[in-house]
């Protein structure tokens, strides 16, 4: 049964149309999940394959995007005059996100990732007068293409290595015996390129520079939705194609995860710029999400959806505030609680969620990850490492909280005129969502069980 991808058509421009479209798709997804019947069927020749897992994820992604638009819609104008183009590009990316969430063949994976990447290169460089933005775009582009090359080589080997001679990931029939050499090479190369996309160490080097250089509004999108989408692709690929061989590549994932956790968390500690710090923290969070790949069981998948929601919400919220800041350094947050108590409160909740403090969605997400990893039963040291790194993460997240609450600042730290009441309430809603998800994660997970 082929479930249609009613949602992969793109919508062009005006903001309201975009938001309306998003809502429509969101509703369609929800109905489809609830009833199990698609609204609109397109024969996709099994190249895309939707199930409750990736549909739920798409819902999460769409919901987050909606929130993202609502929070940041006005800030697009600051980047440049081509607002409608930016919207278009973001919708293209969303299209790519949907593809990578539902792909069933390596070709669609490749196309989906490219559809995500190419607009991203552009968005990164969209602040044309800003040298940092230029530099980030070029770096991103060069390294992204390089990783594309690696991915293609990997795909080629996969193609050559499976006896069925197919690109369909569920038809490869790799069995569970020792894997053929060609498959082995392909697997490593695919893992490398996917690690690059999710910015796992040691293939993460583009992340800080690009996140830092790109206009903040777009960094927000990149760091949240795009990132978790790549994760979905990663997990989906390795689950469908290599799930039976898990024991043979688990060590690799463990190594990558460990490296990611260590490098991400360690480097974030010393950052002065909050934006850059968040870039590193996103690497660190990626390390945690990699635990899902490492474990690759039902718990992991549930957790990944939860993580996607928790992480995206918090990141979008944080960046939305960051956009309004005058100074991106940690000291720039000094005294925020005095000037904007509500914003400070929401930022605190976002940070607590990222740290993984109970009663926030971030805790539930991390909890699921740890649960999954322990359930998996191998490489227990990784779990310990993960929690130690989580403790380190508290160190840098709390620096912002300290700056906001315990330090004084006489100057205004935000562009006051920019902060509308609706913005505040939206942020508050985001924060409340995080807490609600922290108390009732079932709100998300239930969707997986329809």
């Amino acid at each position: 049964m082929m479930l249609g991808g009613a949602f992969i058509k793109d919508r062009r421009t005006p903001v309201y149309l975009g938001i309306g479209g998003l809502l429509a798709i969101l509703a369609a997804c929800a109905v489809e999940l609830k009833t199990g019947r698609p609204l609109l069927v397109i024969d996709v020749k099994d190249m895309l394959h939707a199930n409750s897992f990736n549909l739920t994820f798409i819902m999460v992604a769409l919901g987050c995007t909606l929130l993202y638009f609502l929070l940041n819609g006005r800030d697009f104008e600051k980047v440049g005059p081509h607002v409608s183009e930016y919207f278009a590009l973001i919708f293209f990316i969303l299209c790519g996100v949907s593809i990578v969430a539902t792909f069933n063949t390596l070709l669609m994976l490749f196309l989906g990732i490219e559809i995500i990447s190419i607009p991203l290169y552009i968005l990164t460089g969209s602040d044309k007068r800003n040298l940092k933005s230029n530099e980030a775009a070029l770096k991103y582009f060069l390294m992204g293409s390089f990783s594309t090359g690696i991915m293609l080589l990997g795909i080629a080997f996969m193609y050559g290595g499976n006896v069925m001679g197919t690109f369909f990931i569920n038809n490869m029939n790799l069995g569970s015996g020792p894997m053929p050499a060609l498959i082995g090479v392909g697997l490593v190369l695919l893992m490398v390129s996917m690690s690059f996309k999710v910015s796992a160490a040691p293939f993460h080097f583009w992340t800080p520079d690009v996140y830092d250089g790109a206009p903040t509004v777009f960094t927000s999108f990149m760091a949240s939705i795009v990132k978790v989408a790549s994760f979905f692709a990663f997990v989906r690929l390795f689950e469908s194609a290599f799930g039976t061989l898990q024991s043979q590549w688990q060590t690799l994932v463990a190594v990558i995860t460990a490296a990611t956790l260590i490098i991400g968390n360690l480097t974030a500690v010393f950052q002065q710029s909050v934006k850059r710090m968040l870039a590193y923290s996103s690497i660190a969070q990626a390390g945690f999400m990699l635990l899902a790949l490492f474990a690759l069981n039902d718990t992991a998948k549930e957790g990944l959806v939860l993580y996607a929601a928790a992480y995206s919400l918090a990141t979008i919220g944080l960046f939305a505030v960051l956009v309004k800041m005058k100074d991106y350094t940690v000291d720039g947050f000094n005294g925020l609680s005095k000037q904007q108590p509500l914003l400070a409160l929401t930022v605190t909740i976002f940070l607590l969620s990222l740290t993984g403090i109970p009663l926030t969605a971030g805790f539930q997400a991390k909890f699921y990850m740890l649960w999954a990893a322990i359930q998996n039963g191998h490489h227990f040291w990784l779990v310990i490492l993960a929690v130690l790194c989580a403790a380190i993460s508290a160190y840098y997240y709390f620096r912002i909280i300290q700056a906001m609450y315990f330090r004084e600042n006489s100057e205004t730290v935000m562009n006051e005129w920019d902060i509308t009441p609706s913005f505040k309430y939206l942020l508050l809603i985001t924060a409340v969502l995080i807490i609600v998800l922290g108390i009732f994660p079932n709100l998300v997970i239930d969707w997986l069980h329809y």
Partner: protein
Amino acid sequence: MNNVLQLVWLIPVLPLLGFLINGLGRKHLSKGLSGLIGSGTVLGSLVISILVFLSVKNGNTPVIHYFDFINAGSLKIGFDFQVDQLSSLFLLIITGVGFLIHVYSTSYMHEEEPKDFAKYFAYLNLFVFSMLLLVMGANYVIMFIGWEGVGLCSYLLIGFWFRNNNYNNAAKKAFVMNRIGDLGFLLAVFWLINKTGTTDFQGVFAGISKLTTTDITGITLLLFVGATGKSAQIPLYTWLPDAMAGPTPVSALIHAATMVTAGIYMIARSNILYSMAPVTQAVVAIVGLSTAILAATIALRQNDIKKVLAYSTVSQLGYMFLGLGVGAYTGAVFHVMTHAFFKALLFLGAGSVIHAMSGEQDMRNMGGLKKYMGITHLTFLLGCLAIAGMPPFAGFFSKDEILAAVYAKNPVLWGIGVAGAMMTAFYMFRLYAMTFLGKFRGTHEQEHHLHESPMAITIPLMVLTLLSVVGGWVGIPEALMKGGHHFAEFLAPVFAQSDAITVKHTMTHSTEYMLMIVSVSLALVTLVYAWMKFSKYEKTDKEETGIGKVLENKWYVDELYQTMITRPIQFMSKYFNEVLERKGIDGFVNGVGKAVNYGSRQVRLLQSGQVGAYVLLMVLGILVLFIIQLFL
């Protein structure tokens, strides 16, 4: 008579009430009232004690259970009182001497402000309460409660004048040294609990068969450690002389008559255990004797009137332990009683002198007080005779009984003991002569001020003198009077069990006569010598030299402790504080943070900004992954 036993709980509770009233109402009570409450409650206890004593004499020795104190798992400790010969005797001593001292204090402390006066009596009452608890407890835990309680009161009373930091230091020293002993006591109690499952005296003594020799020796030694703390024996005796910082009646009550004898009480109470542990007995005897001699030598060269008395107390306590060590429990307890009488008398007399001298305590500034203070002088002289062991005063009988028992066990010890007795006679009469004889060496102002003390002071003196004189007659040795030892008869049930197992050294009466004559005559000689020598004492500025200086400085024991124990501990704690804690443990904890920071700085450098470097690192990463995948 059972009616009386129902009142037993009142004995400690009355002073406690006094404490509460005086303590809580100290701002509102007049001096007279608080003095009345303080003395009255003790008097009440005394009356009941006498009734109880009479009841006990008739053979009523019950254990009275009030309520469960600690009741957890196998550990069952009741709040029980035991009334028997030993405790009723101590009750009498405590309440009796205590009452006299309360009365004495009403006058002695009269210059204090009303609230301090009330506070003083509150403390004093609290002390009596604790002491009563100590002797009445039917198990080691209740005893320990009293045991620590008296330590606390001693601390509070020594530091009564808390403006003076020397006094505070002395108080602290007393408390800490006591605590060292208390630890031994506690450990012994735990040992008992561990082996016999109970702390009741009766239970422990009944279950003594469960204990091995090691157990008994260990327990008794630990208990003895406790006793050395409380009763100021080597090595924990140094607090007692310092404790003279407190008001003189306190010294009389706590540091002479009652608290310091707690150790003797405890060992006497546990006599069965000790009788079964010969090793411990030997230790007790040797420690006691050494203390007696050491303290006596120090007392020879002290010039502070109270210090002399203090060392003399230590010395006398040493004799008591010597007695306990050779199994002469009755003798030791007898000596406790007589000592309580004459030492209280001496202290109170000294207090009277100090009172007259407006606080002056240095004997070199006294002299010739005989003509100013008739009653004090006379009572003091009798007290000195009693302590020096002159017949027929109380001290003679009790000391003689101990020495006789020692001789029976080991003549060498006896010899040393007699030497100690000679020294006692010497320093006591040095004290007497320097204070009362010769001519006055103080300032004119003091001389002008000299007077006999008021009635509240002299009456207790006289009562105590009476007791010092006749107190010994309840225990006249067999050799002098057949059946004269009522005291031993009375206590016999308490020591029956241990008497049954100890080997009796019987001595002929002639030997006993000989011993008495030798010791008394030697003491007499030294007494006279001291009298002659110091009645014409003149103040000199000459520094003591040689052994004299060592004695004057108390064998430098305090300094020794300072270097051997206090300093190293101080050093250790300083080292821990400054090095181990800051640089070691906290340093490590912070070091982890620093390491993370350092690591962060280093890892950060990987992010060089160069695309080429990034790609190179990526390729290296790929290589590593391949190698892991292929070869691992």
